């Protein structure tokens, strides 16, 4: 956060780099077998990059990384249907993080991740309810809320450590 904001080609290069990192994490995680046999429960490690981007680069840049990663992730995994779920969840999570950015200090930004994860899961369930044309899918909500909070704290702490280490590197260089 202490870096001067990059402009022009530097900014594009940084966005591309972060998108590539997020996409790589996303594809690697997609190869793992599901942790529990419940739809929508996953670690969501690629969101480490999103949390980092919202706080270090700002919501606008984070949005571009998120949209590129979600679209390319759906293309590369060959399941275009997941685009709908990822977008509805991702956009809701992005809104939550962009708001929380004003209320939390730099040392507390990891807290925004579980909130974003919960919003992501609610967005996914709304998309699922639209696809299945029934609200009965909300039977999954309590499971997804608990798993979202746990995985969100994990990815949030990853992003927290990442920002602190990077700040340290940028300060010393």
């Amino acid at each position, binding site marked *: 956060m202490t870096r001067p904001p990059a402009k022009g080609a530097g900014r594009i290069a940084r966005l591309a780099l972060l998108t590539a990192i997020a996409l790589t994490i996303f594809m690697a995680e997609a190869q793992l077998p*599901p942790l529990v*046999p*419940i*739809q929508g429960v996953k670690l969501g490690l690629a969101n480490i990059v999103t949390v980092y981007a919202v706080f270090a680069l700002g919501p606008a840049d984070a949005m571009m990384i998120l949209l590129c990663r979600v679209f390319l992730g759906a293309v590369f995994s060959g*399941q275009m*249907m997941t685009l709908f*779920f990822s977008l509805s969840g991702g956009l809701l999570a992005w809104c939550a993080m962009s708001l*929380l950015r004003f*209320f*939390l*200090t730099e040392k*507390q930004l990891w*807290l*925004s991740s*579980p*909130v974003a994860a*919960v919003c992501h899961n609610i967005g996914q369930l709304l998309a*699922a309810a639209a*696809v*299945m*044309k*029934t609200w*009965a*899918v909300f*039977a*999954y*909500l*309590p*499971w997804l*809320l*608990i798993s979202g*909070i746990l995985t969100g704290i994990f990815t949030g702490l990853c992003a927290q450590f990442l920002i602190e280490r990077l700040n340290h590197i940028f300060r010393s260089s």
Partner: protein
Amino acid sequence: MTRNAKIVLAGLLVIALASAAFLLLHPREEALIARITVDNKVIQEIDLSQVREPYTLSVTGYAGFSNTIRVEHGRICVESAGCPDQICVQQGWVSDDLIPIVCLPNHLMIELTGGGTSLDAAAG
């Protein structure tokens, strides 16, 4: 820790505890009417208490592949599915109304509803 962080943390704690309480306190009574739906249209309704011999049935859904559903006395599961993720198969046997089996690509859902009380009422 600042006041804002405490509010966020407290909110998360309330959500987690409420979810856990709901899952633990939800009455897990046997639900015996299995309703198989595609796009929320009922394909078949099975009274699992009336099933004597286990059997399988095949349902073709929205995505075009079929889910093979195995029906036994008091429980039901998806035995195999043509989708890549196989989440509905891994979910295994379901015998109560806590969580329905959902196959998102096929828009297929197997819901168990509390038939226990109405059946008793009918028998009484």
